[in-house]
């Protein structure tokens, strides 16, 4: 990249996570996704005259849970404000959001970036309501309020990230934390998690942050990287050309891999925040907060480190295993049955992950066999009932049919040939018909050993038990 050494980059992320309560933040409308148009709309969602908001207790619980999973300080008093602007997807003419006094302050997220542990600090996390959705048809737009009022937690990082990779890693980790805490499915494409990136650049020796540009409309982790990458280049180009960088919002166009100016943040964008007089301050009892925090299970980074420690896995393996909570849960359930962490990890991150990726399963909890059944398969391999190669075949069959490995091996006759007498005679006849090779072997061409094994496997269609074959061959070839 040109001129890259001349500048420092500062990236901050604002992540909106939909909290998965059944009903909306301030109304009793359902939060279900994708039902008929305006079907999940109550009088409150549509801003009818005389209606008033009432805060959903579950949204509060989920917000506290999320914020503490992000290591934030939960505030005993937080206050909702009105953020005012006219937009058709915002029925009241204001969004109810926490402004001066958010529910959570500070916090941090730890993660591994290229095997190195980094920490990104958070500024705050606050509760707010989502807007509706508008669809554009040239001459007019159509408004669906199903999403309007869905509870959100907006997670705001400090503007301290220095590379697009770091920003993407941070976003991925936040998603992982949300999923571990079971507060949000973190689906970027469907918009249950949305990332806005604030990007600014400055000269290497400049103290003050540069003018920040907000990037919106980024719906994959890969695009976070690409959008920031593009934007940094654009800003560098601007400065190099002696142009000014405007404080503005830009949309990322993933097809053209470009950011496009949406609107300039001028004086006209005066949100006139003031405390929402229809809601009292949110007062939380310490005991209530503690109870929610205590329900929180282990987060991803803790789990990674525990896996490395307790199971002697490599960091890379541990990271792969913990990428999804359900996968790491499956791993732990499996090693309770078969205490071979390395083997279990290899199988899970290898063959099983391949099958999972080829499938269209929503998440790991939906895989078609239990940890128990899976451990049976691994045990059969370990006990030389089947070979590793056959094991892969059996696994695929298990995935397709949900049958037990025993059933599959039996039905298909895949169990290993370990009858020594039978193998003895097979091997004898093979050696007899390859006298020349036997001679060469005995004269020192030990590489030929593999050839004999191959012949045995060919003769037995791969079912010969390798240790027994080895034992007999070694003896006969002496």
């Amino acid at each position, binding site marked *: 990249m040109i001129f890259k050494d001349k500048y420092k980059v500062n990236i901050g992320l604002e992540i909106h996570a939909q909290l998965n309560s059944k009903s909306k933040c301030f109304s009793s409308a359902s939060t279900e996704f994708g039902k008929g148009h305006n079907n999940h709309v109550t*009088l409150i969602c*549509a*801003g*009818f*005259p*005389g*209606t*008033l*908001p*009432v*805060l959903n207790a579950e949204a509060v619980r989920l917000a506290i849970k999320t914020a503490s999973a992000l290591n934030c300080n939960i505030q005993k008093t937080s206050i909702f404000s*009105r953020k*005012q602007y*006219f937009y*058709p997807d915002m*029925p*009241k*003419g*204001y969004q109810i959001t926490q402004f001066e006094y958010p529910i959570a302050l500070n916090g941090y997220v730890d993660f591994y970036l290229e095997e190195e542990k980094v920490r990104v600090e958070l500024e705050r996390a606050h509760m707010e309501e989502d807007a509706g959705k508008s669809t554009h048809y040239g*001459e*007019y737009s159509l*408004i669906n309020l199903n999403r309007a009022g869905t509870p959100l937690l907006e997670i705001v990082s400090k503007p301290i990230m220095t590379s697009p990779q770091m920003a993407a890693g941070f976003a991925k980790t936040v998603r992982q934390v949300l999923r571990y805490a079971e507060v949000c499915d973190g689906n970027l494409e469907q918009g249950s998690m949305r990332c806005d990136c604030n990007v600014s650049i400055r000269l290497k020796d400049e103290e003050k942050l540069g003018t920040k540009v907000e990037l919106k409309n980024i719906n994959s982790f890969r695009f976070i990287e690409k959008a920031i990458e593009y934007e940094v280049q654009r800003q560098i180009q601007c400065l190099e050309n002696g142009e000014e960088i405007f404080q503005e919002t830009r949309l990322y166009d993933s097809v053209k891999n470009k950011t496009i100016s949406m609107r300039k943040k001028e*004086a006209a964008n*005066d949100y*006139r*925040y*003031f405390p929402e*007089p*229809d*809601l*009292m301050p949110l007062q939380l009892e310490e005991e209530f907060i503690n109870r929610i925090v205590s329900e929180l299970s282990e987060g991803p980074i803790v789990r990674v480190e525990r896996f490395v420690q307790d199971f002697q896995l490599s960091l890379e393996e541990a990271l792969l295993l913990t990428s999804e909570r359900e996968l790491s849960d499956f791993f732990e359930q499996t090693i309770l049955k078969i205490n071979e962490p390395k083997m279990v990890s290899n199988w899970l991150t290898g063959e099983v992950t391949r099958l999972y990726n080829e499938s269209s399963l929503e998440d790991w909890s939906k895989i078609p066999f239990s940890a128990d059944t899976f451990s049976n398969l691994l045990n059969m391999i370990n006990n030389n009932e089947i070979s590793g190669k056959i094991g892969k075949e059996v696994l695929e069959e298990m995935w397709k049919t949900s049958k037990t490995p025993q059933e599959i091996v039996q039905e298909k006759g895949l169990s290993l040939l370990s009858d020594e007498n039978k193998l003895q005679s097979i091997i004898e006849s093979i050696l007899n018909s390859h006298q020349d090779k036997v001679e060469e072997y005995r004269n020192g061409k030990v590489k030929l050993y593999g050839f004999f094994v191959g012949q045995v496997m060919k003769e037995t269609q791969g079912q010969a038990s390798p240790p027994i074959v080895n034992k007999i061959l070694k003896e006969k070839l002496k």
Partner: protein
Amino acid sequence: MLIEKSAIEIAKEIKERKLSALEVCETFYNHCKEENQKTNALIRLDERALEKAKLIDEGKVTSGELLGVPIVVKDNFCIKGRETSACSKILEGFVSPYTAHCIERLEKQGAIVIAQSNMDEFAMGSSNETSAYGPCKNPIDLTRVPGGSSGGSAAAVAQKMAPISVGSDTGGSIRQPASFCGVTGIKPTYGAVSRYGMIAFASSLDQAGPLARNVNDAALALKIMIGKDVRDSTNIDFDFKSHKETKNKKYKVGIIKEFFESDLQPEIKNGLDNMLKMFKDKGWEVVEVEIPHTRFAIPVYYLIAASEASSNLSRYDGIRYGLRDINIDDGRSVNELKEFYKLTRSRGLGNEVKRRILLGTFALSAGYYDEFYIKACRVRRLIFDDFQKAFQKCDHIVGPVTTHTAFKINEKNDDPIKMYNNDILTVPASLSGLPCMSLPMGKDDLGLPFGAQIISPQFEDSKMIEFASQVEQLFVEGGQI
């Protein structure tokens, strides 16, 4: 005569089958029709009332403390299946899909809504002149205003269109028209009556309350209207005990120095002096209290109310309900979003409403927020604290409701400051969320009524009513009203 009867009498006689509910309803309904031609107090009659009355006569509805009692409801309370407009053009044609909580509670006790009453647009006004339905006139003198914003509700009760009406009070909107029309009106403690279904003007000030021709009727209506509603987060779980007259309580009555020092019409001053004399004769103690921050009350009130209103009225945008007026010349309509908003809002909202939206938008805007809105909220606390101190010295506070009796229609129309100053005696209690009421106290030389204001400590609504009952008794005995 039937229309002279109190609500309590009517309900009792209907329950005892001495009166037919339909007869009651028809009588009031017809009286409404006739009387309304004089004052324009009502903007919509509800013909469904007669059907509801029949149900009572047929024995299908048999209980309720207001069984068969016709009531008039201010047009800012949503009523299911009825147009509800807060007397604004911008809500033209809006048929509410639900009923306000406090109206529902009254209906559950057998009350029958027979009409919706005129008001200042979105309750912004002190004269009922800003209504999109034209002004309401004062029934005592048709050249004068009935007060506002609950002008229609006050006039309707004065005209005996119903024994009880429902109003709302943000800065005096029940008390001032009650005073101008010679009826009793109560604004309860902020948070006592659920605001759910009452079209918002200023959220931290708005309270619904009843108007009636006597304290007992008003007290009964209020008792029914009060009740915990989970749909209003500012609603208090309120323990309202209906008042019982405790004889011989020696009250300590406070009078606010600043109120008595204001420029009062001589007859009002006299009325107050008489009242205080009666108190002393009864052995009650009268003490002077101070609300030193009274002089800031009008700017504080108008800044806070306008700020909240500017926000509360943003929802009127012509998208989901009500008026959409976007036609420009030769049959075309505007197709640019900002202009779309501006056209509907500018055509649908009246001048006083616009003035307050501008004021509120300004007070909340960047660079002015601290200096105007927040400053006003700070002074609001000072006024609240003044009252807290005052109530250490007395049980209740009495004083005038307004400095003068009803003024002429159009008299203050061109001068917003004059109009705003009219509320000087009512807004301090509103800002402090205190229960307060207006009780007819006398008439001036022209025969125009004026009321006494009672202000009580927060949450002591039932004690206020108990006290008011005794004061009412004194007025009756003294031949004052």
